[in-house]
């Protein structure tokens, strides 16, 4: 490519930051390179962009286009360290002052008041018990038993068990995990990828962070089992940029696993080859959308792709790709060890296994709660010590900003995929955020609307402009605004490219439908 670069030259420090991360010199190194510049220099300068462009052979306009997409990168000088004070909904109701610009949820909603609660079942039993930095300790707590068993069983048997478990994806869409595994396994292409979606960014969600920080080896082992089962040699672990501790612990876990022969070449002496590359997001909620995540890894703007083709046919680098969320993946070792049928016996006929919930807001003990599918919303709230604040519940936000508000009359809803669907809600990212009767719900809805406006990638018209109009109409209020608001919502739901736009009106419409929004 014949690049034309600007006149600005990089400083020595910028040159060194870039050159240390360039690696193979391919475009997919762009995000790590930009991270290196941001963290070492404090901003991404024109001279640095010229150097990145020359080293990675990417036109400077495109380097700029990618860098300007992410909230964590600055294209003008700013101090290397910048404090971020979350002003998203969970913190807003605790008295956080609105920031300009807004600071999106940092996934620390369990830190209000007392130490975060943890109610562990079969998934979280190692968290807080095993040393997250020690592979030895992980193995002492039954770690890597499942990989060893999977290698004995063979790939097809592993997939059979995952299918038999009826495990549904925990990322929000509830797609049968086994079907994805089967589809990628059956692909004719010799190159396949495993991608672990650890870009947990839904406001009020922090369960995957707790897993990654508390049990990082479980994520690595689960990805390795997936790689073995579908026949992939390479996995990408895409961790939310705002989760530095999780990224640090996972990086350490990857190094430890490689050093002890359970990751890399000839795993457990069995000739299996599978390695994992960790990628850090850079402040873009949309990159949790699987195809936007691929573009982000590949060094492009995190804009979702049109589907079909689906990731199982053409995903990362155009190859068949298995994408699973962190929570989905860490269910796999248990399925391999106990068998799919035993797993399917837990929970309800359709929603099998256990589920991690993120309780926050006006609840007595916020934190992550693991419960068998089928527990009701009321039981879950009681597990967490009941309603805090005024003690009088106004509404519960279920599933996150892309989820729905449910009213106190709906607390006996069983928390299953089918149970929540029956009341026009969804489990989404398993946010359970409580609001007492002192909260001005309109403020909360406005903050949610601002969230979607700020996080829309801007690619398609319904979402790019619809999220702006939604916020304006909500702010304007009044009876004449409501029908327009509903039409904007329908167009976003029907005509947006991806799940972000399709659910950007969900929480607001749920509040309208339940009469929770008082003008």
């Amino acid at each position, binding site marked *: *490519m014949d*690049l*034309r670069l*600007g006149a600005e030259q990089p400083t020595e420090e910028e040159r060194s930051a870039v050159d240390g991360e360039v690696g193979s010199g391919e475009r997919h190194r762009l995000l790590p390179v930009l991270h290196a510049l941001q963290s070492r220099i404090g901003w991404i300068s*024109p001279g640095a*962009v010229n150097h990145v462009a020359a080293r990675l052979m990417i*036109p*400077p*306009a*495109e*380097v*700029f*286009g990618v860098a*300007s*997409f992410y909230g964590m990168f600055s*294209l003008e000088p700013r101090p290397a360290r910048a404090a971020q004070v979350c002003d998203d909904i969970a913190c807003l109701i605790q008295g956080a002052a609105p920031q300009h610009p807004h600071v999106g949820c940092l996934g620390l909603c369990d830190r209000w008041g007392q130490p975060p609660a943890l109610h562990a079942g079969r998934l979280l039993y190692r968290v807080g018990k095993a040393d997250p930095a020690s592979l030895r300790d992980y193995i002492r707590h039954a770690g890597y038993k499942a990989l060893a068993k999977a290698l004995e069983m063979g790939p097809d048997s592993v997939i059979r068990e995952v299918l038999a478990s009826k495990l549904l994806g925990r990322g929000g869409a509830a797609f049968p995990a086994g079907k994805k595994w089967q589809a990628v396994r059956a692909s004719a292409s010799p190159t396949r990828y495993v991608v672990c979606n650890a870009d947990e960014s839904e406001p009020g969600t922090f369960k995957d962070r707790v897993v990654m920080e508390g049990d990082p080896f479980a994520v690595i082992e689960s990805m390795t089992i997936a790689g073995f089962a579908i026949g992939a040699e390479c996995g990408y672990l895409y961790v939310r940029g705002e989760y530095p501790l999780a990224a640090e612990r996972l990086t350490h876990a990857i190094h430890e696993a490689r050093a002890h022969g359970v990751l890399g070449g000839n795993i457990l002496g069995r000739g299996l080859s599978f390695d994992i590359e960790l990628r850090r997001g850079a402040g*873009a909620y949309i990159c949790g959308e699987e195809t936007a995540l691929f573009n982000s890894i590949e060094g492009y*703007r995190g804009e979702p792709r*049109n589907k079909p083709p689906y990731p199982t046919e053409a995903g990362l680098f155009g190859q068949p790709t298995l994408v699973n969320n962190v929570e989905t993946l860490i269910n796999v070792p248990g399925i391999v060890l106990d068998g799919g049928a035993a797993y399917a016996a837990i929970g309800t006929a359709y929603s099998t296994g256990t589920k991690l919930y993120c309780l926050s807001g006006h609840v007595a003990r916020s934190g992550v709660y693991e419960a068998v599918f089928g527990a009701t919303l009321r039981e879950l709230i009681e597990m967490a010590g009941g309603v805090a604040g005024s003690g009088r519940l106004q509404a519960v936000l279920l599933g996150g900003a892309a989820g729905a508000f449910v009213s106190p009359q709906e607390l006996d809803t069983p928390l299953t995929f089918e149970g929540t669907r029956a009341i026009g809600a969804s489990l989404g990212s398993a946010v359970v955020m409580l609001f007492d009767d002192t909260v001005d719900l309109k403020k909360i809805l406005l903050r949610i609307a601002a969230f979607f*406006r*700020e*996080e*829309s*990638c*801007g*690619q*398609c*018209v*319904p979402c*790019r*402009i*619809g*999220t*702006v*109009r939604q916020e*304006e*109409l909500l702010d*304007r209020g009044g009876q004449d605004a409501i029908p*327009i608001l509903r*039409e*904007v919502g*329908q*167009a976003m*739901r*029907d*005509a*947006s*490219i991806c799940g972000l736009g*399709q659910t950007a009106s969900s929480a607001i419409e749920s509040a309208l439908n339940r009469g929770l929004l008082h003008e």
Partner: protein
Amino acid sequence: MSDSPSPLIPIPRGPLPAIPPPPERRLVRIAIDGQAVSVPEGATLLEAARGIGIDTPTLCYLENLTPVNVCRVCVVELEGSRTLVPACSRKVEPGMSIHTDSERVRLSRRLVLELLASSVDLSAAPAAQAYLERYAAHPERFGPAASTAAQPVKIDNSLYVRDYGKCILCYKCVEACGVDAQNTFAIAVAGRGFEAHISTEYGVPLPESACVYCGNCIGVCPTGALMFKSEFDMRQARVWDESSQTQTDTICPYCGVGCTLTVHAQDGRIVKVTSPLDQPVTNGHLCIKGRFGWQFVETITSDTSPPTPRVAP
């Protein structure tokens, strides 16, 4: 040249192998608005609908560019699909049943047009204007305080202007500047959400960017956001009159490629140059010479008398 076979090239004995016939494109049967149609495998829903005379609106779609399906004005209802699907890029599959004019389709199309018209100046986009009327769009209902993309016009060179207050972010200019035509990559989409915009690196003026002034971005722009400086100046002076203009096809005189030019003239003076999209040599794309190098036609007369360029009617 000698008739003896070259020792380097083995000559096959016996009859020459026959060239295999091109693979037949299988036909796929689908239903459009209840009407059964057969369309070649690999065709899009847009092609299938246009094939039976259904006029599907498009803004970001153009025959000579890769579909990006971002404007969403072409959406249709596909039975069994949770959401509407973009006709411009969705390929036909056997047994599909689509509806191109259902309530849901009309609502989304109307809203897309209202959202655009309430934020962007569509006064130089006749196609969009016609769609607004066709779908009875009322962009003014978002109120006078609705945010817009209004901003000053960028004039940083003598050949073309960029008025991003008219930009609907259809990505066409980025595609034409990139792999779909020019491979220059002077511009890209920058920023995110409502702040997303077309930009050079750090927004530097075009003369400092990689731009080679092929003008192919102008050729594909559907809203007049990218415009010949000549047209922009005439519009500012309120003398731009498309109804009085002539369009004359000719061949570019500069090099041996032989690109077809369409010369647009008003009052006997060239006002801009385009190339037909269906022209096999250009696919609608030109270079700086063909696109902008016509001033010599007007400088052949003396400075004292008004120029009388010769343009065939």
